[in-house]
């Protein structure tokens, strides 16, 4: 606990230090500038540092012709991805999602099987056999193998033994704030872990299966591409009543 408190203080200190140093530097530079820049330097600086711009992803007007995925990364504003392609695949249709920054997220049965353009990418994911469908997963769970290529760093062919099992209650992790509590309760939850001792294991993945826009599908998931880079994926909007 002491360590956590100390660490929190450090984080606060760093942020404070960054703001102060930037302000001081900008004031100092401003005073020394050969010609003064626009007067809104301060406001932009402060607004950027003190109140990171809140994404409008959750309130953005949606086009009913498209399907969306709300992606939430811890500590950052959520992003809204749009479905670009449904690519047929023997293991299940691959959904190709695009962000406004042209990042690509590919999911198959809700699992991330490739990303492109993120700070950490899973370029390709391969399975020994197609993981069982969510609706048919036995209560004792299932085991399968996974290989993936990770970039940057050319970490090719990372091999993991995966185990998935139903989870009778809501997962003991903080879920996306965009997922209504009642919706979360109505989902069937699954927990997927990599077995075996890895030096830097990925946190467990959580999947929520349920009904979305009249279809049974994977509505919500939390999947980590690395120990410190986890995505929360939520089909959006969560209900038909959403605009």
């Amino acid at each position: 606990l002491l360590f956590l408190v100390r660490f929190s203080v450090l984080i606060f200190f760093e942020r404070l230090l960054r703001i102060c140093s930037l302000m001081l530097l900008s004031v100092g530079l401003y005073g020394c500038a050969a010609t003064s820049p626009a007067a809104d330097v301060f406001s932009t600086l402060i607004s950027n540092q003190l109140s990171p711009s809140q994404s409008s992803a959750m309130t953005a007007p949606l086009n009913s012709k498209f399907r969306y995925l709300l992606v939430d990364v811890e500590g950052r504003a959520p992003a809204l991805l749009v479905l670009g392609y449904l690519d047929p695949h023997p293991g299940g249709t691959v959904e190709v999602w695009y962000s406004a920054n042209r990042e690509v997220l590919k999911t198959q049965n809700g699992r991330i099987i490739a990303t492109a353009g993120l700070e950490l990418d899973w370029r390709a994911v391969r399975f020994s056999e197609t993981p069982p469908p969510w609706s048919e997963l036995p209560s004792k769970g299932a085991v399968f193998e996974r290989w993936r290529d990770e970039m940057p760093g050319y970490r090719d062919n990372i091999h993991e033994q995966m185990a998935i099992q139903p989870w009778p209650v809501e997962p003991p992790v903080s879920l996306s704030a965009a997922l209504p509590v009642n919706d979360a309760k109505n989902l069937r939850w699954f927990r997927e872990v990599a077995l075996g001792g890895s030096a830097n294991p990925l946190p467990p993945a959580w999947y929520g299966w349920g009904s979305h826009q009249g279809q049974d599908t994977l509505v919500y998931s939390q999947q980590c591409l690395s120990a410190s880079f986890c995505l929360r994926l939520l089909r959006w909007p969560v209900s038909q009543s959403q605009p």
Partner: protein
Amino acid sequence: VPLGFLLLEVAALAGFAKSTVRGRLNAIAGATAIILVCSTAFYGHAAAQNMAFSPPIVPGERLSDWLVRNAGSNADTSTLHWRVSAERASQQRLRSAVVQSLQHDTNITLSVEERSNLATWLLALPLTGRLTVAIADPRWLQSAPNQDPILQEGHSVVLAPRSATVTVISDGAPPCIARHISGALIGDYLRACLGTSGDAQVDRAWVSQSDGRTASYGVAPWTFEAQAQPGLGSVIWAPRRNSGIPFNVSDNLSRFLATQLPGDIASTSARSQLVPGPTLAGTAPRPAQLTASDWGEIGLLQTPTARMAAAGDVRFQLSQVAPYTRGTVMFQPLDWLEAGFRYTDISNRLYGADIAGDQTFKDKSIDLKLRLRQESQYWPQIALGVRDLGGTGLFSAEYVVASKRWGNWDASLGLGWGYLGVRGNVNNPFGRLDQGFNSRPAADVGNGGTVNLEAMFRGPTAVFGGLQWHSPYDPWVFKLELDGNDYQREPLNNNQQATSPINVGAVFRYSPNIDFSIGFERGTRLMLGLTLHGGLNQVMSPKLLDPALPLVRPVDPDQNPRHALGETAQAIELYTGWSVRGITHDQITTTLVAETGTALHLQARVERAIRVLHRDAPATSNRFVLLLRERGLPMSQITVERQEWLAQHMSAEPPALRLPAIEALAGAAIQTEPAVSDVAPQNYWRGKQAGFSLGWGPSYTQSLGGPDGFLLYQLGLEATAEYRFSDRTWLSGTLNQRLLDNYKNFNYTGPSELPRVRTFIREYLTTSASTLPLLQLTHVAEMGNGHYFSAYGGMLESMFGGVGAEWLYRPWRGPLAFGVDVNHVRQRDFAQNFAFRDYTATTGHATAYWDTGWNDVQINLSVGRYLAGDVGGTVDVKRVFSNGIALGAWATKTNVSAEQFGEGSFDKGIYVSIPFDVMLPRSTAGIGTIAWNPLTRDGGARLNRAFTLYDLTRQRDSRALQWRETDLQANGSAEARSYVLNEPRPGLFDGLGGTTRTLGRQIADIPGSTWLWAGGAILASTLLDKSIDQWAQNSPEAGTSTLANTSNGLPLALALGAGLMYTGIGGEAAQSTAETAIKAAGYTLGANLMTRFVVGRSRPYQEQGNGDFNGLNTTALGSGFASNHVAVAFALATPFARQHDMPWLYAVAGASAIGRIEQRDHWLSDTVAGAFMGYAFGAMLSEQQRGDKGMRLSVTPNSVVANWTFK
């Protein structure tokens, strides 16, 4: 066999020289075919049997579409090869350069057979024309059209099955193919293929990944770096350290290997061997941890190490170990130079009640550390450093330190003098040369500011050193050191209790930019420290608050102007911050005229302007012309070929087929702005000339380290206003309102024996809260051909008002500019209102601005008259990083003596200038400068002019379109740098090593008769020494004659002339000769220094006679044999005299002896010896230069160049 291949290569290269582009490709294809046939004939094994498949392309389709069509959207594309036949030429050049180096580079120590094997194997590899693809995912490519190639005739796409191997190639060994193991690193594969002993012989390895990208990594315990894993199908090139293969050859080789399919690499060698997959070592290599010592430099706790941070690094370090608190700012302007300054607070000593009341003692100091040698397998890294250089010298110390790394351990051992050597645990090694080195004179602080050379490396000497260990828990670094100081001779009679010579400590690396440190030192004291550090060259701020740029879309053939031209102008102003003066559509050209302002990042703004023009311009407009002005002065004309620009934004184009989309030319005096009468009214728009503008912002002024308080500051509001009578004439003013300050403590006025031009700073800062620092009317003009003029008048700065004028000659993109400014000014009233004081001055400077082209270093040299009437020069050296941040230092020396100048002895300082663009989330014009000037004094004070022509003409700089935000973007498709030759750029001093060796041989080859002849001549001249000296004594003007003064100035004049020629102003031949002359002068000075040290002959004015010799002591370094003036004059003159048929230069050099003799600084024989010495070095180096004759063939990325030098 290699000769045969070489002939084929040469034949192909000759084909390039004569043929058209298409012809060149045919020549290449032909040569390639022959080579492949030859390979088969000589090695008798079949060409690669790839399982790769390559369905035909449909010209015009996207690569992404090809992938979806032929492989599916989810296929494994990790081995994708996009191949363009036109790229084979550059890849052949790449291979030829490697092969030529392998065959002819004398530094390479491989056996003939090893060279031949390697070259032959390389020549057997196919030329693929492969280009990189940013991310080979078709769905991603579809979202990034600028990274998605449009396939054309001559393109092909190859998809090979995923390889499960990694190939290791080392010189002298056949390719080794090991099974890929996830998580295995380079060292693991090297051990699998080369064995433990082979792995131990490799310092650096290159990895060519299957996606076509390459990187190199240190793999020996002393070079370990963080590294990427060799991916599936990658190739590792691992030359042995003693192979002598130059870095750039390995780099080129690895990039050529990246063009190959793994199967091709394995199958072209009959001797390939297969080995099992490697065993994982368990721990990944980690990079060296560079942490600050308590003194701010890279080091342990109290002691430095030989380590250096990366160039561009800046560090602010605060440490406290009672009674000292140190605040240090350290810079790393070059890879081998670390420098900075420090304030030290001594908590148990006071400044002195009469000066600073109860303020604790503060001391300023400057540090310097030079890397003398880089680390190698057996040699440590060695550095030489000085602490507290030139200040009061309270903590002055000198040291030589060596550091050797072994993985996570880094050991250092050094010898310290001064504060670092007080323990005195060894004898001073220099004491063997001269007993005087055994005692250190007390710091002769005097006025400070000068380097106390007399004390350097003298007195008690101590061994210091220690260990640094990077713990397995990554953020922690532990340190253990032997301190060279026992704290029993502390300055200010402030000895400290020290019960242990061992200090221990730890650094917690909280983030990449923040370190906390803790230690236990002297056996009694706790140390706490904080370090903020980062790379100035890496500073950037994503432009999150900028408006989103218009998307680039193909031109609609029916597109008419989408907006009224006024709206287009508004949009350009929004995105660029420029002031648009006009837009004209004239048939196929759209012309934009704009005032650009002071933003440094021009390239980004040009790109934004083009995007808007492309969005709005009619489809008929094929060319955009941007006429950019600064204060009405034409600066540059940027022509954009719209279709080519569009093509480069809409697809990935092969570098070989890429045409320049943007061309920048000098802005002409009368720019080709279309006449309005020629175009229809709807096709032109003219903006109003800027009239009145107003801005405001915060102001901040500070003074550090003064006797009235460590920090004196004022915060306020500053309003700036400008009225432009015309583009080139404007009135600008600044009004400052002080709001918050601690000036009630500000009582000290520095002493001065000069007119008080700057030391009234307290009065200027405190007299009035409302001030008018600037009110200036300025007019600028262009006179054509790079000549500019300005005239100005008013309140020119906070302390002076008056009138002035400036002329600047700045050739377009030239390395050299020259300017002169003259000002007549009067001192302003302290209230900074419209009143004046009595003091007037005429001040001005001639300034040469030289962009050296070496490490982005610029040198400005000014000579002239300063505000206090003193005459002298200022040298300003700065490095400007690619993001526009400049790190510099200046020094001014005038004819004011150190005593007159006061504390500091001469004016100097360090500065950092930062474009606002790099630190704010919104594009913002302007550059801020933070300067550290240890003391404000009156000597060497320059007028702070608000507008200088050099700044206004920044767009004429050769790097004007290169300064840009640090690029954090991932790799792109068809990167031009991927498969282009990497040729080493010679450093400023790189030629010296070879020159010195040759010089040694030349000296050894001088016949004995020549030595005898020269020695005899010098001896003979001694016979005239006394009679000539008698003449000097009897000279009526006793050495002050015009002749003597002129004569003394001749070496300087020759040096300036050589320097000017070295800038290239006199053509390439003169530049080359000037380089030789400057080198010769350097060698001559060095040789003469040694001669003086050995001979130690007294000078005539010492009245000891011409036979008094007292050498082998440091005083002898200032003795008279031989004359530096004459030696340097001859060294500079000889190369020009010999190579450019200018024998009269010998007479000029000889005339430099007159002043030396008349002023009784030298005997005649001193000057004769100097003349021989200078001539000898000049002649020998001149011979070296002329010796580079015959034909030299060099291959560049785009050409083959033959240089034939002959007498």
